């Protein structure tokens, strides 16, 4: 379990991360989502012990990263935003070195390096200079490095950046497969990625946590309403009346003609469950339905809504404090 408690980080006077707290449970993939510059990388650098925090605590499986760094770091595999590879080394040589500084010795080292290369599919590159590898391969070498030492926790900062679409799928599958042995924090600004891989997301913007929940809950929180699309053949009036007669739904909001006597009816409903009722009502009236689908507000919309707005001022005093810190000419004495 990774616990992050009231973590704060200042760069000079700028707060990059403001008092954030969250917990990552064992064998969970937590998505860390936010626009560029939201404080994702800073947070991850603090969790892994690269940067010290300005305030707050990070506990890695119960070990404080600030108080007992060497023990805590042993439990973490980290893939930073830019893969930390030496251009002048060969892939295998580099991985052996990385295993060495993590304190892995002898036969164990060899086995782990082979295993990591196998998992990332870079075995055929083992004797190439890293300098000559493409961005995607460098990324994978960096990822392989994170797996060495079989750490309990994997911190992956944008692991699929720079990969081509088929590699992205491979890496996602790899991450899913790592779940059974590791606990993973994955950051990304790509929604599909988070949606595909993570169970829970933390959405961060301007250094503050905006939301922290499972993806399904987040989408539900946008309002439970769904839009049901039904493509059916038959008389328009009759079908509309038939649909409207079902309890628990609003009226037909839109009818889109699709062809000869075929229309798509858009219905807004409280939830997905009414779909069955509508269908059975239509079937009872001998109307043939060729397509049924439902749309819900996507995570994308949730994301945009949560991250777009600047943080709200809690009260006037906060606003004044901010003005004071932003304006160097502001003189307290004048008050």
């Amino acid at each position, binding site marked *: 379990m990774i616990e992050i408690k009231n973590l704060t980080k200042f*760069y*000079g006077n700028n707060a*990059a991360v403001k008092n954030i707290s969250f917990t990552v449970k064992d064998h969970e993939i937590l998505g860390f989502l936010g626009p560029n510059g939201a404080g994702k990388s*800073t947070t991850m*650098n603090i969790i*892994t*012990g*690269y*940067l*010290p925090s300005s305030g707050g605590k990070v506990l890695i499986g119960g070990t404080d990263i600030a108080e007992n*760094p*060497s*023990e805590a*770091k*042993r439990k*973490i595999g*980290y893939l*930073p935003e*830019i*893969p*930390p*590879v*030496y*251009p*002048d*080394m060969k892939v295998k*040589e580099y991985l*052996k*070195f*990385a*295993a*060495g*500084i*993590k*304190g892995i010795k002898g036969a164990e080292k060899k086995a782990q390096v082979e295993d990591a290369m196998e998992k990332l599919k870079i075995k055929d590159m083992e004797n190439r200079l890293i300098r000559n590898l493409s961005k995607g391969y460098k990324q994978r070498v960096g990822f392989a*490095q994170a797996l060495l030492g079989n750490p309990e926790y994997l911190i992956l900062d944008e692991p699929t950046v720079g990969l081509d679409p088929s590699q992205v799928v491979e890496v996602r599958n790899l991450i899913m497969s790592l779940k059974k042995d590791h606990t993973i924090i994955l950051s990304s600004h790509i929604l599909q990625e988070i949606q595909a891989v993570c169970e829970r997301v933390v959405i961060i913007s301007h250094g503050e946590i905006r939301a922290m929940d499972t993806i399904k809950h987040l989408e539900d929180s946008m309002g439970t309403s769904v839009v049901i699309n039904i493509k059916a053949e038959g008389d328009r009036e009759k079908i509309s009346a038939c649909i409207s007669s079902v309890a628990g739904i609003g009226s037909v909001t839109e009818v889109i003609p699709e062809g000869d006597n075929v229309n798509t009816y858009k219905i807004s409903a409280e939830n997905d469950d009414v779909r069955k009722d509508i269908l059975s009502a239509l079937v009872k009236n001998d109307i043939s339905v060729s397509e049924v689908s439902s749309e819900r507000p996507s995570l994308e919309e949730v994301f945009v809504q949560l991250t777009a707005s600047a943080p709200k001022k809690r009260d006037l005093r906060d606003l004044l404090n901010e003005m004071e810190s932003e304006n160097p000419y502001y003189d307290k004495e004048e008050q």
Partner: protein
Amino acid sequence: MFSLYKKELQSYFYSPFAYVITALFLLIFSFAFSSSISDLSGTQLTFSFPGMFYSNLYFFIFLIPALTMRMFSEERRTGTEILLMTSPLNVFQIVIAKFLAVATVYLTMLVLTLFFPIVTAATGGGVMWSSLACGYLGFFLWGLVCLAIGMLMSSFTESPVIAAILGEGAMLLLVFIDGIKSSGLFESLPKAAKVIGQFSTNERFVSFSEGIFKLSDLVFFLTTIILFVGWTIISVEKRRWSRG
């Protein structure tokens, strides 16, 4: 820690880097050697190896920063610093491993210069080995001081070139402390001159090169090395805190 030491050594010896510098170093040495021989006159026909070391000090100021300039600046620039800093190694171990690696390269360069006294002995010349050993020890210690300074400069900046120039500046200052001490201004202030003289590496190097081993000189060199290595540890650690 040994892995890091090994990797650092490889980074010197797997690239042309160490070879080019060693070759240049030996070239400078051989010039000094051949000019010493051609200058021989009189009945005694002697020349001193430590004297050659001494005249090489000035060239060394440009060679040593080339060895040390990339030690930390390159790691920071390529982002590989993160790998080291998030490994179970602490900053102390990282700095020591890197310093030992560069010291090993330097030692290799020095060992290769043994070629010259060996040739001298083999061709019938007499070599005072005990005095020579003392001279080598002095030269080695003096070099370690310069390496420690160069390493410190490398931890200050992200650019290897700036690290090299800063290192050259600092080493020039070290070499010219004697000159500053004997300048007109400090001649008139004997007490201040004495204080400055305490920091001079040249005087201590000279006594080594004359075959005089003084514990106080050894302690001076060792404490200076510890000072700069320690400062590097603090500097690297500090960069972590003020990054951003």
